[in-house]
């Protein structure tokens, strides 16, 4: 349908119809975090297993719209096997891609999360390839209501990493 091709790219529909890394992992060794969008009732459950400094496995459960589900699927495929630093970089890059729209509107938040966000924006704009298949979700920023759908699983993953590193620093 004209006008929607930016939102519903073929890659997105493919990941929605055939989600990757769908399911659950036993806790422990996995760490489990829920993400919840109270506006629409979408929920995502992220299971991760971290060994050393590597995210060795990830599973996604929950339910939601095509954007939240495909974003979670794309995320799972792109972070599996990466080091935690690489995963954190990717989370930052993805979230800045989702906020490019807001930054350009100049809503006064530019000095909020800091110049770092701007740097990453520039990196993304200069090299859209950096995100690989994830760049398919870039069209979401044209539909501001759906940004929350796209970032739901990413926020859950970030929370999982934060909890794991907090747990690790407590036990060391």
């Amino acid at each position, binding site marked *: *349908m*004209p*006008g*929607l091709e930016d*939102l*519903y790219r073929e890659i997105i*529909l493919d990941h*929605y*119809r055939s989600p990757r890394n769908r399911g659950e992992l036993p806790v422990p060794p996995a760490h489990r975090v829920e993400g919840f969008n109270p*506006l*629409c*009732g*979408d*929920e995502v459950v992220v299971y991760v297993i971290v060994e050393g400094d590597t995210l060795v496995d990830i599973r996604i459960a929950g*339910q*939601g*719209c*095509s*954007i939240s589900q495909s974003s979670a699927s794309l995320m799972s495929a792109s972070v599996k096997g990466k080091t935690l630093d690489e995963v954190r970089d990717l989370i930052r890059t993805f979230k800045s891609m989702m906020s490019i729209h807001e930054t350009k509107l100049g809503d006064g938040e530019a000095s909020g999360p800091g110049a770092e966000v701007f740097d990453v924006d520039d990196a993304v704009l200069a090299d859209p390839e950096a995100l690989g298949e994830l760049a398919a979700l870039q069209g979401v920023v044209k*539909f501001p209501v*759906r940004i929350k*759908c796209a970032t739901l699983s990413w926020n859950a993953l970030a929370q999982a990493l934060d909890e794991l590193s907090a747990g690790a620093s407590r036990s060391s």
Partner: protein
Amino acid sequence: MADLTTMQRLEPPAPKAEFPLLGRIVRGRPIVYLDSASSSQHPRAVLDAMEDYYETSHANVHRGVYAIAEEADRRFEAARMAVGRFIGAPDPEHEVIFTKNATEALNLVAWSWGRANLRAGDVVLLTDMEHHANLVPWLMLAEERGLELRWIGVDDAYRLDLAHLERLVDGVKLVGVTAMSNVIGTITPFAQIARAAHAAGAVVVADGAQSVPHLRTDVGSLGCDFIAFSAHKMLGPTGIGVLWGRRELLEAMPPFMGGGGMIRDVRHDGFSPNELPWKFEAGTPPIAEAIGIHAAVDYLSKIGAEAIESHETALTAYALDTLTERFGDDLRIFGPPTTDSRAGVISFAFRDIHPHDLAQVLDQAGVCVRAGHHCAKPLMRRLGVTATARASLYVYNDVSDVDALADGIAAAGTLFG
């Protein structure tokens, strides 16, 4: 597609041309507005009345002795009388209270009547069909006071399950029931519940936010002690709602919010409240909005409740038939399958397409529907879903709107395969 006779038969009683917003072109075509259960659009008559007030007689009410202040006062109180007559209030001068919206009206009942009359262990009876506006205030009060909450369930035919009504109302202090569901369109047997509740000695609150805009409302035959509704779902402006209550109950209730206008006297050591209805109207009220709701009820009255109901019933039947014929088992309607005790609020699921995706594709076709939990999470759980898509009809909708909805659903089917 509707044939010519169907289109003539279903000519809307409120011509779209009288609603400026409905003339708006969105994505290259005239807007198809199917979200009136959330908020309705305004006829020129309502907009003109509010503009005229601002341009000719704006001043604060209940204060000035000068000409325009008297005029503002007169127009504000005339609105109260008109709204009261619209719902058959026996004493509108004292019993109609202007609030911010239906939600505030229901909170007023909970915090004023509820706090004065409910103690630990007292029972409040609600239904699984309620909007959060008629749930959360009672949940808050239950937490504060240690109340017991009981629930009237929803059966598989999307009706309130009244099989055990006598037992459920036994010993209950207050019953809160919606007169029409904002999710599944069910018109509840309110009067029957009110009779049982009164026989058990309970006070009965009606959430009329959905029913008052669409159905002839007479507080006497409904049998409620309070009813709450909002102007913006009945062609009026946002920012004003109504609480009607029986005078003897209102007289005995303490004020809800404090401030100017609601007092008779204020001293260092206390205050005495004003008389009805101003006792419950603290601060400068929504004056232009009152004039707006006055114009809205005049507009609806001119059409007539009978014409409104017969148009909406016929258009709902057309919508239910169209969706069923075109999509068969691919489309599931959450709500009664016929127009028997059912209004034009149509919640549905199409295949396994998420309601947000469905609403997004419909938006691309200029069709405005709602997707989500519709502020009725207990009912969504009962239906076994987290969200639905919802199309809702009003006096200005016609068969072309329903056809556009069906075309948009078909387009979503193509996109998501």
